[in-house]
């Protein structure tokens, strides 16, 4: 995990971004209750008062969002997922057509790029394919203007992690 975190931090700084790192394991975040209160009760604001609200502030005001997580069964780990589920209020409830698909409009105007960095113990073709597909769907549904996904394997040299993350960020077009 650490080489990937350090690599993304340094690349983003080199490109002139201010970087805020949120360590989810130190945060108190309840699971989403599925109540849609953030859409139709207190628009844009979750009804639960915990650390997810500060994360929402960062989430909707950053030009680049890097999500770094162990990949579990081809998906985000439950820790990251708990935070992501709470980001529903970053979108509006309305359904709008986008080509052949339906999506929600963004609540905030900011153009954002999303970068996914997944950690796997070793190469695993099926998990890699699934994680790529999930990253793509997330980027489309959060209406990111660019996205990329990199995988880091614990059984490979740490320099590989830095290279993968660096390439990933460049591919997502994170230059300000």
């Amino acid at each position, binding site marked *: 995990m650490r080489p990937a975190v350090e690599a993304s931090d340094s690349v983003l700084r080199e490109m002139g971004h201010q970087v805020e790192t949120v360590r989810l394991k130190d945060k108190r975040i309840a699971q*989403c209750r599925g109540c849609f209160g953030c*859409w139709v009760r207190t628009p844009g604001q979750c009804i639960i008062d915990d650390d997810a609200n500060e994360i929402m502030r960062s989430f909707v005001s950053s030009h680049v969002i890097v999500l770094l997580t162990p990949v579990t069964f081809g998906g985000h*780990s439950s820790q990251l997922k708990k935070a992501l589920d709470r980001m529903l209020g970053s979108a509006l409830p309305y359904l709008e057509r986008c080509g052949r698909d339906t999506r929600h409009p963004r609540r905030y105007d900011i153009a954002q790029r999303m970068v996914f960095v997944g950690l796997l113990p070793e190469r695993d073709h099926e998990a890699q394919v699934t994680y790529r597909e999930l990253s793509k769907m997330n980027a489309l549904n959060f209406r990111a203007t660019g996205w990329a996904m990199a995988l880091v394997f614990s059984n490979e040299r740490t320099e590989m992690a830095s290279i993968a993350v660096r390439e990933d960020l460049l591919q997502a077009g994170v230059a300000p």
Partner: protein
Amino acid sequence: MRAVLLIGSPRGDRSTSRALGVYTLEGLRSRGWEVEERFTCRDVTTSEGLTDLLAAVERSDLLILSFPTYVDSPPAAVMRIMETMHGRIKRGGALLAIANCGFISSSNNTSSLSICRLFARDIGWEWRGGLSLGGGNVLAGRTLEEAGGVARNVRRALDQAVSALAEGRVVPRGTIDRMARNIVPPFIYNITANRAWDRAARNNKVLDRIRDRPYMEEEQV
């Protein structure tokens, strides 16, 4: 034979996940299976809950995981249960996953179901299949029987799935395709859903604030 239903929606009793899962479970019960149901979002919050849930899974031949797609994948509580089971489940078993999502196209459940399939692979279980329903909000709060005509196709698909599961077979491709059909025409669904959000906001007296940006930063222009 014994089946356990894990309901992966925090909306519990009133969820579409439960409606789909219970209908399937009842089908198995009527064929002589013993059945039980658990709410993952409740169980995941305490270590006793987790232990009870794992025990229920251990004594079952078939696990039915029925959940809503959240952010293109299973909700956090479901991921957590899968992570926990991965380390702790000792015996073999079989998994059926049922995902429902809010967008009309059931293709929005694709990643959710791939994740479930990989979970089955990683714990060495048999994968009985993944059923996918779009426009899940159409059923919200109703059983499949109460939903009447709009759920006819869903009931038929689940009846077919039960026949296969009861015989220890994988859910056939045709059944999966049947379940995945649009529950109502997409443009009607979108118009109705948009009106329903407005109505809900109006009832809460916040329709004029529905586009509020409580976290708007100063520099964002």
